């Protein structure tokens, strides 16, 4: 399969002002369309790892090692220039924008013209089973609807890699299954490297993911 490859090279995270890394250096190659699940005990720094790869690392931490996307070193690029999509546990739709405008916020600027952009958003809403939701207030959506809208918003930005930070853990069991199959179906379709952080082994299994375990002692 051709497409972007996400590479981590000896990556670790050190709290500023302390010498001890959260976990041993991690090297990893995620190929296009591949899903890698990062598992590990809570507090080991799984979410921090995701932030570091996306460029959202808090100033309380420093990153060591390199992150490469499509062969380019993006370690020192700001988040907005990395083209790495992120989905957090809460869908984090912008509360001041309508559902449709949330999607339009991320829609790649390569799509021009008011009508084309509007059509692209409507099409994405259709795919997410949210037809006719353009003007809706995000606060009135159900948890599953919100997550689906957030995924479509992320994908409309045409990311070259995707990071999922516990994307299903806020939902009840039935909703979780439904959303899992929705998300993984989309991932297979677009074929970009994806990292998922989760404490639920079901997530990895459902997505057919390769599993990497983070451990304060060692990374395997």
């Amino acid at each position, binding site marked *: 399969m051709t497409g972007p490859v996400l590479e981590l090279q000896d990556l670790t995270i050190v709290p500023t002002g302390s010498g001890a890394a959260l976990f041993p250096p991690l090297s990893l190659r995620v190929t296009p369309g591949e899903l890698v699940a990062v598992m590990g005990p809570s507090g080991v720094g799984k979410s921090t790892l995701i*932030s570091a790869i*996306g*460029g*959202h690392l*808090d*100033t309380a931490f420093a990153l060591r090692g390199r992150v490469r996307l499509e062969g380019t070193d993006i370690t*020192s690029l*700001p*988040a*907005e*220039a*990395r*083209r*790495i*999509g*992120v989905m*957090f546990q*809460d869908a*984090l739709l*912008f*509360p*001041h924008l*309508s559902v449709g405008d949330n999607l339009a*916020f*991320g829609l*790649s*600027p390569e799509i021009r013209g008011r009508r084309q952009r509007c059509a692209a958003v409507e099409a994405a809403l259709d795919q997410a089973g949210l037809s006719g939701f353009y003007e809706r*207030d*995000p*606060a*009135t959506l159900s948890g599953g609807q919100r997550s689906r809208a957030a995924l479509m*918003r*992320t994908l409309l*930005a045409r*990311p070259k890699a995707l990071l999922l930070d516990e994307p299903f853990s806020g939902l009840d069991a039935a909703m979780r299954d439904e959303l899992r199959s929705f998300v993984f179906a989309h991932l297979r379709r677009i074929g970009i490297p994806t990292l998922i952080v989760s404490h639920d082994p079901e997530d990895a299994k459902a997505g057919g993911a390769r599993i990497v375990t983070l451990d304060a002692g060692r990374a395997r």
Partner: protein
Amino acid sequence: MSPAQRRIARGAALGLVGAGILVPVAAGLWQTTLTAFGMVPGLSQTGPSLRPWRELVALPGALESLRLSLVTGLSATLLALILSLGLVAALTTARRMRLARQMLAPILAAPHAATAIGLAFLIAPSGWIARLLSPWATGWQVPPDIATVHDRAGLALILGLLVKEVPFLALMALGALSQVPARQQIASARALGMARAEAWARVVLPQVYARIRLPVFVTLAFSLSVVDMAIILGPSTPPTLAVAVTRWLQAPDVMRMMPGAAGALAQLGVMLLAMLIWVTGERALAAVGRALARRGARRSGTGFGLRVAGGLAVLLTVLGLLALMVLALWSVTWRWSFPNALPQQWSLRLWRDGAEGLASTAGATLEIALAATLVALILAIGWLQAEGPRARRLSTLLLLPLLIPQVSFLFGLDIAFLRTGLPEGWVAVVWGHVLYVLPYVMIVLAGPWRAFDRRLEATAAALGAGPVRRLIAVRLPVLLGPLTAAAAVGVAVSVAQYLPTLFLGAGRVATLTTEAVTLSSGPDRRIAAIYALMQAALPWLGFALALGLPALAFRNRRGLRGGVE
């Protein structure tokens, strides 16, 4: 931008904001000090000498003024603290809390001068209260000869300060209370055999107090050095130190300037002394509290005291609302002679006749307020956007102007302007107002700004939005409620300023406040009432807009409604 450049840009932003606030304070204090020690080349005084201080002590009433300031300032602050805590302790239900907020808001927003004028029209021997009770209850056909305003002990001034400061401290305490798990703690204390009020006083109060200590010191500094309210309500022979100093510094005889500056420094000394007394009192009370706790005392009478204080605070709130109402009454009065309870003849004629002057003064006031608020908002956003953990600790320094008596450095700041060739007038006045608007804007904005969910910005960045777009398209709109609230507070603070306008405007800048203070000693209550009412109306309008705009903008956004207090 590389990380290094970003660090430099952030440092520059923090430095600029800090310098904009701290340099004027430092320069003002320095020039005041030079003048106080007779180093004024312009008046061929080459000091350093102690002559200004000897002249100060020799000025009639100087020492009495000093004593008066200390007594009125300390008692007003202490009483305001007790009454506000009593009020907050009594707000046990959501309904009471809502009612209290609604009642306190108009008083809190009204400038000190307007409130003082209304209060004077209420409690004066010929005031509304005397009119309502006469002659049927008092037998007075003419106003009695009792000094209920401008009394020598400064009781009217203390009352005026209480009317304004109790709402301020009560709202601060309410904010602090929300950070304390009061309900559970009171339940545990009651299970140990303490009555509810006693439990509040002994368990919740110390935690609330620790969180409102800074506002208490702001109240102390303000009460010790207030000028406009002290002119309107306070004693006149001699007046409080801040009023006396203001008069000496504004005297036609320029040689009065040096003892005046010495008095301005003495005012700073009074503030430090009062703080020392206050902190000593804090320690003593804390020791008493600990001793009670160790003895396992279940009753100490503090609970009862708190309930009395709450009752008095309610009374005071009613007084404040009546004071604002009497302004409205007098503003539409044509003839109202003693002892009629209401005007005999009503008229809008004075509004009509004075409309032009009133509109231009109100316009000038609003211009200054909007300019100062805009500058303060930009500075506050710049600071908050640039701050890291270290700058966050330093941000308390931005509140410094609130802790230093205004007379102590504003006069010196005016001299500094003259010496450096910067023009007095409009720009200087706006800058002077920013010194007081910025701290309050920070108080309102910092909490919501720092509590903002950073993952929203991370999400926007992952969608390709750069720092400018993240600020303008995500953070600012989501924080629209706190931003408009901060702007309304800023306008209210600016409209209330008296001394910065007086000193830095060089007599050329007139606002509703300076006019109202001047008119308050004039013969015509109707005109004074019109100006005072207008002065209060501007902040009210601001708060109405601050509530209305986000509600309108977010009428279809459930996630953002109810975010504004």
